[in-house]
């Protein structure tokens, strides 16, 4: 087995992993960094983020506003000390990206421009047309090339962490082009593997978004926190789930039902606005908008498209072709290529689809997990920024703010500890190799990977969708247990070594089943409605409301070998914002004024 001795190992080469790698390299050029990614870094799913990255920019804005938008948007399940740190670091890190060459869109006088985004009180979303994630990712990847201490392991698939003496000491990977195993030793390990949206059926996520890092940490006893909170994005392309960025609405697009009626005014987001107004109508938060879609469907006011199913419409016709081409070029092309329609002339059929995993590997405010030496950042982590619902454009900023922090922390840790015992690490790695190889070499299996994956995704959509009940969630929990059992009997067609994606897909599915179980069990355990977790049941509908007495708590899912996860509840850090009614539109503005008055 090939062995590489690094100081810091980073698993995941998306925005967070790259930012962390640069942070380690800048903090001490003598530290050896191994950056492991199952795809070339610029393929990572950061690439698909469209709208932008939030950070205070305008003189009329303040850290406090950004803090309150985020905490309120998260339905008070955010770690407030984390949010305070985040809002202050955000503009610094976004400026850093500018210095590294990120082509942020500009105002006429040459400054970085900001746009409106859902749930944000003031325009503070830095954007690079509608390819913000693409530009951030490529900027970070290209900048990372400057640092010789970053050794990339591109197209290496991580199969396990190595733990010894009570701390993490490395990872084992499969080099995809050969099928050979590598032991990458490290004094600290940062997981930055992204979300897990592919456990659901209709989603905006790339095929690689399979929750790998979450499952890796989870199997080593680290809790997955707040996994029941899955964000539905209200404007996705039906069937494929491809994303029409929130910036479509930030730029002034409307959402209308089959009667051409801007239905959001019926769901506490009104009154009607002609121009985009922050926190009103189409610029409400994603959970509220997705829920409104669900209600419209119940009321029979969605359009029943013969092939696409139930849809509402995104109307951008009044914005004109020139403006759309400048601000939303990717969206324009996607509508043309994938749907064969012209957004300057026609309505775009859309519906809510799975978009973002709010929960993840439980880490503290310094990105450290409970297993010493292990850090997690980005969508795979739960640092406590998003609470029960993420505000659009906070997550791209999260990548760089916490990528930097985790890089600094992991570097410090790596310098403080001594190297491990290489021969016993190798022994562990060899045992892992045998376990993973067995998955491929075993014969006589009858279950198809694709079938199990599809049943899982359908079951998650049925049981853990926008609205949930005990029965549907229980059915999903049962189904997942069944699939877990059936997984043991899978058959893998491809027995080869070079580029065996059949085998790797099976390993991914194994990860996905773990992650799906934490979501379903965390969900059924939360007997209230908060943010993206909405229930329709309970005695006298008790679970349809937020319950701060019992559930102003994080859910924490712990791994139980061969069984359902154990769910515990953890405290929420509250510093300066006590839970209030979460209001948007005119009601939200009134609540804001009352709060201001009471503070004076």
């Amino acid at each position: 087995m090939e062995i590489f001795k690094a100081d810091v190992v980073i698993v995941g080469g998306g925005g967070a992993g790259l930012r962390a790698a640069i942070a380690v390299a800048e903090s001490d050029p003598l530290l050896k960094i191994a950056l492991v990614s199952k795809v070339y870094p610029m393929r990572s799913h950061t690439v698909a983020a469209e709208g932008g990255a939030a950070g205070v920019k305008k003189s009329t804005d303040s850290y406090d506003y950004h803090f309150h938008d985020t905490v309120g948007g998260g339905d008070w399940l955010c770690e407030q000390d984390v949010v305070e740190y985040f809002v202050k670091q955000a503009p610094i890190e976004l400026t850093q990206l500018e210095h590294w060459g990120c082509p942020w869109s500009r105002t006429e006088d040459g400054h970085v421009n900001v746009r409106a985004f859902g749930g944000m009180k003031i325009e503070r979303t830095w954007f690079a047309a509608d390819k913000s994630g693409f530009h951030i990712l490529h900027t970070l990847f290209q900048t990372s090339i400057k640092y010789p201490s970053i050794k990339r392991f591109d197209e290496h698939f991580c199969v396990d962490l190595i733990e010894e003496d009570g701390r993490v000491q490395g990872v084992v990977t499969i080099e995809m082009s050969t099928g050979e195993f590598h032991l990458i030793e490290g004094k600290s390990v940062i997981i930055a593997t992204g979300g897990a949206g592919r456990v659901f059926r209709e989603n905006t996520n790339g095929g690689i978004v399979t929750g790998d890092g979450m499952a890796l940490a989870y199997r080593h006893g680290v809790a997955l926190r707040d996994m029941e909170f899955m964000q539905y994005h209200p404007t996705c392309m039906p069937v494929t789930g491809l994303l029409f960025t929130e910036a479509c609405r930030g730029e002034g697009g409307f959402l209308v039902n089959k009667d051409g009626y801007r239905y959001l005014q019926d769901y506490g987001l009104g009154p009607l606005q002609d121009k985009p107004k922050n926190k009103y109508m189409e610029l409400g938060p994603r959970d509220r908008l997705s829920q409104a879609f669900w209600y419209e469907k119940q009321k029979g006011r969605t359009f029943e498209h013969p092939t696409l199913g139930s849809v509402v419409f995104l109307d951008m016709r009044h914005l004109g072709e020139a403006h759309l081409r400048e601000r939303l070029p990717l969206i324009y092309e996607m509508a043309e290529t994938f749907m064969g329609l012209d957004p300057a002339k026609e309505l775009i059929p859309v519906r809510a689809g799975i978009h973002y995993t709010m929960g993840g590997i439980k880490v503290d405010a310094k990105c450290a997990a409970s297993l010493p030496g292990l850090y997690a950042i980005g969508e795979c982590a739960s640092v406590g920024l998003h609470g029960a619902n993420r505000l659009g454009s906070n997550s791209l900023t999260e990548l760089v703010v916490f990528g930097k922090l985790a890089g600094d922390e992991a570097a410090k840790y790596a310098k403080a500890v001594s190297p491990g015992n290489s021969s016993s690490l190798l022994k562990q790695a060899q045992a892992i190799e045998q376990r993973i190889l067995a998955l491929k070499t075993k014969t006589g299996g009858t279950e198809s990977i694709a079938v199990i994956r599809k049943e899982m995704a359908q079951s998650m959509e049925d049981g853990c969708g926008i609205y949930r009940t005990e029965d549907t969630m229980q059915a999903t929990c049962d189904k997942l247990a069944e699939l877990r059992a059936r997984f043991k009997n899978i058959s893998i067609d491809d027995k080869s070594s070079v580029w065996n994606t059949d085998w790797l897909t099976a390993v991914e599915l194994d990860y996905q089943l773990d992650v799906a179980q934490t979501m379903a069990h965390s969900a059924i355990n939360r007997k209230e409605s908060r943010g993206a977790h909405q229930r329709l049941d309970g005695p006298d509908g008790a679970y349809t409301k937020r319950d701060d007495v019992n559930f102003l708590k994080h859910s924490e899912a712990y791994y139980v070998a061969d069984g359902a996860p154990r769910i515990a509840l953890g405290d929420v850090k509250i510093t300066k914002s006590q839970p209030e009614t979460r209001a948007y539109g005119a009601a939200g503005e009134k609540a804001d004024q009352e709060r201001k008055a009471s503070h004076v």
Partner: protein
Amino acid sequence: MSKRKPYVRSMDGWWKKNPYFVEYMIHESTALFVAAYCLVLLVGVIRLGQGEAAWNGWLAAMQSPLSVLCHLVLLAGAVYHTYSWFKILPITMPPVIVGGKKMAPEALTGTALAVAAAAGLALLALVWRIAL
């Protein structure tokens, strides 16, 4: 021991594999037509230097039916070369900014072709007048 065995495909006959490449090869080969006519003119200059008899002989040869046919073929080749050369002009020269906007490739090609045609006609008119 790695089981990798990357397979490298042959480039033989690459230019036949795509209509775009065929067109490219025609474009490139018509450059030979232009070169051929340069040779013809060069021979003319040499003949001129060799005295009146040589020069008249050359002129007579130029007027033979075979030579006229040859001229037509070379002219067709040269015209095609000019056309296809200007077709790729937009990618071979720096962007032309007009009124703050990048000039469209079609406009660039069109302008270049128009200029070439005008220059050709002007030359023809000039030679015509001298000949008369």
